[in-house]
């Protein structure tokens, strides 16, 4: 598998794998990032590693080390990675209200894709999405497996505010905004379940290496589940991931 090391400014290095959304590529990125979070890397000046689909951004202390030394460390760690699949992934089932006030860009996405809004919803909710990594805001899952039939580009200029729980599409990616934030994704629905709750331990609901499925609900169910979440009574459903290659 090809790897490139790219300096970023004065305190970063990108380890870049083949740029595609692929669980096997992502597994290497996540596992490299995990090794970079351990004591050996810290002792050599690595402060943090952020895994993503097909890359790891490595933050290092420029006083103690350099781009070149960090690249050498990463190359050594890559040579030691275990490529076996992960055991026992789960599928989290997330209720989502689609369209209308919950998804202001659903009609645009449907038009762009040559489908009806209902067809977009059926395609979107018909897949178990692999959770490649978390990022952007606490607990935000980056998902893979979006059907090319409903891929749509980001907004030309990002919105400065996207409501919490919004479900969006950008290019060939789909995801959920855990908190209100700026964003350039096309919004097609919203979930009432908080994916990040600072009162909860752990505060982040999802984990990379597992799966997420969206289940369409009506506005009335949205309000009911939202109330249950506020009262701390809602439990997200999940089941073992049954088919195909695990992460």
């Amino acid at each position, binding site marked *: 598998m090809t790897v490139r090391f790219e*300096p970023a400014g004065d305190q*970063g290095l990108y380890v870049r794998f083949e740029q595609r959304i692929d669980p096997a590529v992502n597994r290497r990125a996540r596992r490299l990032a995990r090794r970079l979070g351990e004591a050996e890397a810290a002792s050599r000046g690595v402060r*943090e590693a952020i895994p993503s689909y097909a890359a790891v951004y490595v*933050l290092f202390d420029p006083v103690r080390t350099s781009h070149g030394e960090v690249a050498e460390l990463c190359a050594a760690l890559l040579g030691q990675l275990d490529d076996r699949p992960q055991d026992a992934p789960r599928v989290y089932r997330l209720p989502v209200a689609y369209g209308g006030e919950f998804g202001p860009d659903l009609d645009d996405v449907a038009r762009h894709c040559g489908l009806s809004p209902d067809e977009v919803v059926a395609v979107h909710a018909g897949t178990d999405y692999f959770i490649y990594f978390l990022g952007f805001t606490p607990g935000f899952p980056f998902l893979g497996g979006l059907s090319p039939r409903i891929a749509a580009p980001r907004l030309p*200029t990002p919105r400065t505010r996207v409501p919490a729980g919004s479900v969006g599409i950008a290019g060939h990616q789909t995801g959920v905004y855990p908190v209100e934030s700026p964003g350039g994704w096309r919004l097609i629905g919203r979930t009432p379940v908080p994916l990040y709750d600072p009162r909860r331990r752990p505060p982040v609901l999802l984990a990379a290496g597992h799966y997420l499925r969206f289940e369409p609900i009506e506005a009335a169910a949205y309000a009911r589940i939202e109330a249950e979440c506020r009262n701390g009574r809602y439990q997200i459903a999940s089941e073992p991931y049954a088919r195909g290659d695990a992460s």
Partner: protein
Amino acid sequence: MIEVLEPGLLTTVQDLGRYGHQRYGFSPAGAADPAALILGNRLVGNDPGAAALEITLLGPVLRFTQPAVIAVTGADLGAMLGETPVPVGTVVAAAAGEILRFRGGASGCRAYLCVAGGIDVPPVLGSRSTDLLGRVGGVEGRPLRAGDRLPVGAAHAAAVPGRRLRWTFVAEDPVELRVVLGPQRDHFPDETVEVLASGTYEVLPSSDRTGVRLRGPALARAREEVLSEGQALGAVQVPPDGQPIVLLAGRATVGGYPKLGVVVTPDVARLAQARPGDRVRFRIVTPEEALRIYRDWWSRLHGDEVLAAPGEPDRPIAPADPAPSGAAGGPAQPVAPGERAGAAEGAGRAIVRAPFAGIFYDRPNPQARPYVRPGDRVEAGATVGLIEIMKSFYEVTAERAGMVRAVLVENEQPVEAGQPLLELVGGVAAGEAAEDVEGSTRSSP
């Protein structure tokens, strides 16, 4: 305890950031101008990364319920303790009940209020910084509100009222940002790199802690979307409209707009002081140069030269930033006391000399009158000129009172270290031998 009477435009608790949790989506946050935070903390005797208040443009109104030792660094936003102006970069003591407010300033964007003992809100995941995106840390993950009460920690080192910084941050126009090309350099045609290196960009009002939004020559992209990946501080992000966004401390951990380059950390700190309407330009540097720039900056921030104790005779220091490559003359060499040329020429006469090489200005700005003219009487400590070096301005002051007999250099004249600038007479006690007076340098408020 510090009581918030009015919150100001955007005031948040910040330290040097929350690291180790970006992989779960926790933005590092932290001070947008970490240099100002570090210097302020050092002034009041805190650990360099202690939590402080980051103040944006229009400052808060705060009351100290107990005596506190404080310093304000970064932009001069018109800090007032009671009826007394608080000079930027100087330690002052606030009495119990005293009120700190900000009248506003003409330039710069962010000031830091550092208190001996630090702002003692509960840390979250190892940091007191406020992540406004994730609503984490500081005071409930949000900006300060009227009615907030901020605990102050116990001071653990002797803070010295009157201690001051030896240099100041001066608003620049345009701000020059040194940038390393990448990580998506190959998503852009070569012409775009030329546009970046030659264009002038204006800071837009929609800028915030997540990033500075710029308007200027569009940066054309060769390819469309990229996969979301980790984002560096200072990344030059290019949306489809070609108008770049330079990411600051409050950025999201990952993003999918291509990044043409990453600005070096010291210049991100300077960019954090740009206000809407200010202009920026970019200069491309190599990764190796970027490392050197960072290391020099970091060592100066933590070195001894930046602080002067009250009453300590001023001595010249090396400039704040290393010389940009190709700058004439390179970094100034400090003048050691034994190297000053010229003996006293007679009782009562004193020569003010340049403490290091730079450009001498006889007035605060081109439209103003000169600080002094021959025949003027000056007090001890009065500013008699400026020396510009590496985009910073040092106030040259008279160490003794006297009368200006002659100004020996022209406005905007390059001067060498040790070069005579002014001649003063009088103000020397009878019987005391006149001696050369090293022009003292003092941070300008």
